[in-house]
């Protein structure tokens, strides 16, 4: 069970694993081809309580802690198509938690639908001009009586095409060079809001079953009550939720890598070359031994920081270290496991080919490795 998981976490793990085996894995090929996951799977997850893990019971959640989220993310990341955990975690951990800082009235309106999987969430931060520099975004909001008018555009928005609720980051007022963070605000934008245009579904290298879109705001009229927190003070809120987002990406990285490595080990045991299984060649044995060690180190770091996070004690430096290490390791492992498969690994029909493509986005999304290093360097006061 390990130091971090209790009996009930393991019962939960079993439920999620059964769900993934019965209701996700048989459909991943189809979803990858279609470039999206169906509404029905969201509703199903809602029924079993997977979409409201940490939300209070009064909204239909389970009131559980982050360790359950860790278990959930670990298990859904073993489905063989990373787009699935990416899409789901965007809904549960990257977008909807902003409601925790919204008004009670907004929570009552949105959370039950989100937890039931009736409405899907997206978070819109990145823009064509940049994603990492949140304080430098160009989308702006102007107050107009009981509304804000939003103008600008967003790009690389996960669940962008199929979402019903967008959490949109926009600047209110002019950019203040003295204090660039000032003015950053977060708005809840319903899909049907006039002035919101959903652009094309973007064609990606990996994460194919999660739909990604461009969004355009042209005088998009958002009611004032849809402002989250205080006007102009959204920046620290976003930075705080980035910690959750990055930790979830770390969990996905470790778990998907673990699955890919398990598959590669099985392959190395079966595949015979020069009259011996690949697993009997020292070069392969040592490569596998190295990878198992790297994943173990990555996992323990992720567990430790997840535990800190569940206690409210994870610093952004620790989270950045975790995201940096786990996503870089995932890419190294993607390269190495594909090499074990040789030519077969390059073929679409082998899951490792997808893992290789899927892993690539991990060091980019939710803050690039370069940004992670900057955060760490800043905290070291270099």
């Amino acid at each position, binding site marked *: 069970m390990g130091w971090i998981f209790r009996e*009930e976490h393991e*019962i939960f793990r*079993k439920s999620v694993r059964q769900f993934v085996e019965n209701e996700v894995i048989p459909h991943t090929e189809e979803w990858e081809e279609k470039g999206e996951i169906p509404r029905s799977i969201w509703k199903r997850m809602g029924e079993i*309580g997977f979409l*409201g893990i940490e939300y209070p019971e009064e909204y239909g959640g389970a009131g559980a802690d982050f360790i*359950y989220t860790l278990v959930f993310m670990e298990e859904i990341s073993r489905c063989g198509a990373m787009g699935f955990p990416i899409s789901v975690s965007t809904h549960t951990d990257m977008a909807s938690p902003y409601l925790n800082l919204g008004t009670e009235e907004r929570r009552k309106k949105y959370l039950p639908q989100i937890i039931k999987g009736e409405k899907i969430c997206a978070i819109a931060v990145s823009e064509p001009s940049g994603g990492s520099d949140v304080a430098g975004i160009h989308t702006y909001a102007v107050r107009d009586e009981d509304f804000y008018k939003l103008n600008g555009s967003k790009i690389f928005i996960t669940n962008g095409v199929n979402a019903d609720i967008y959490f949109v980051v926009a600047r209110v007022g002019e950019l203040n060079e003295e204090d660039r963070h000032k003015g950053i605000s977060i708005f809840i934008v319903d899909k049907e809001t006039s002035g919101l245009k959903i652009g094309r579904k973007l064609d990606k290298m990996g994460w194919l079953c999660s739909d990604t879109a461009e969004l355009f705001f042209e005088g998009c009229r958002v009611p004032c009550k849809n402002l989250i927190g205080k006007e102009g003070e959204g920046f620290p809120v976003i930075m705080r939720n980035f910690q959750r987002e990055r930790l979830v990406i770390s969990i996905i990285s470790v778990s998907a890598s673990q699955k890919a490595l398990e598959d590669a080990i099985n392959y190395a045991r079966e595949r015979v070359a020069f009259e011996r299984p690949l697993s009997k060649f020292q070069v392969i044995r040592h490569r596998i031994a190295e990878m198992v060690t790297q994943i173990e180190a990555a996992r323990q770091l992720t567990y430790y920081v997840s535990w800190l996070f569940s206690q409210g004690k994870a610093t952004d430096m620790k989270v950045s270290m975790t995201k940096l290490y786990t996503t870089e390791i995932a890419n190294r492992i993607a390269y190495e496991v594909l090499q074990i498969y040789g030519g077969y690994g390059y073929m679409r029909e082998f899951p490792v080919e997808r893992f290789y493509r899927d892993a690539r986005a991990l060091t980019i999304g939710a803050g690039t490795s370069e940004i992670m290093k900057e955060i760490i360097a800043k905290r070291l006061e270099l």
Partner: protein
Amino acid sequence: MKWVLNPYDEFAVEEALRTKEQFGGEVVLVTMGPARCREALRTGLAMGADSSVHIEDDNFAFSDNYVVGKIIANEIKNLGEYDLIFTGFKIIDDESVQVGIHIAEELGIPHVALVSKVVRIDPDQKRVTCQKEIDGGHVIVDVPMPALITCPDAMNEPRYASLPGIMKAKKKPLKEVLVDDINLEALGLSRESLGKDGARVKTTSIKVPQIERKLKVITGKDNPAVKGDEIIESTHELIKLLREEAKVV
């Protein structure tokens, strides 16, 4: 090794929960086994059962079906009134199929084994109608309640333990029963009749069947190293083997 709940018992839990959803009432889980069974009980509680009884004592380890049936029946009696008991039709570790039937016998109630479908429950008349599959058809059995039903493969599709269910299960009662809590004499048992040593049925050995490899390769003409005479020789050998060993020609 990863221990799991006996899959047939899982069908029993699901069937009990469905019955409760239809008619109301309460589902109580009863099991006998070591500490690791607690996870199975918690899973059942998370699926929706109301409470559980765990008969956990090393003295019971490897008891025979007769003893297990008696002890479990006794705990069921202690629970008070009941209408239906669901058990798996067998256990997958030693393939024994008697515990459920022993319980019914002990309680003096009818049992219907291998029920593929509960057709009807009449709470007023206190009767339950069950369907059993037989070769080329099925049998409908109608018995008075309380009754015991044993559950075969694919009787239903057990639900997942939902997360809210798991959270609620933490607060549900899990009663633990030790050997000292049971009046063995009243049940016609003694300490000596418990466990492996007291078992009336002795397992003398468990073996993994040895599968004999029957493939024989005779080098033939695809091998460039084999010359003309040798091909004839290997053909002769093949015919000989087919005749003498395989006895097919």
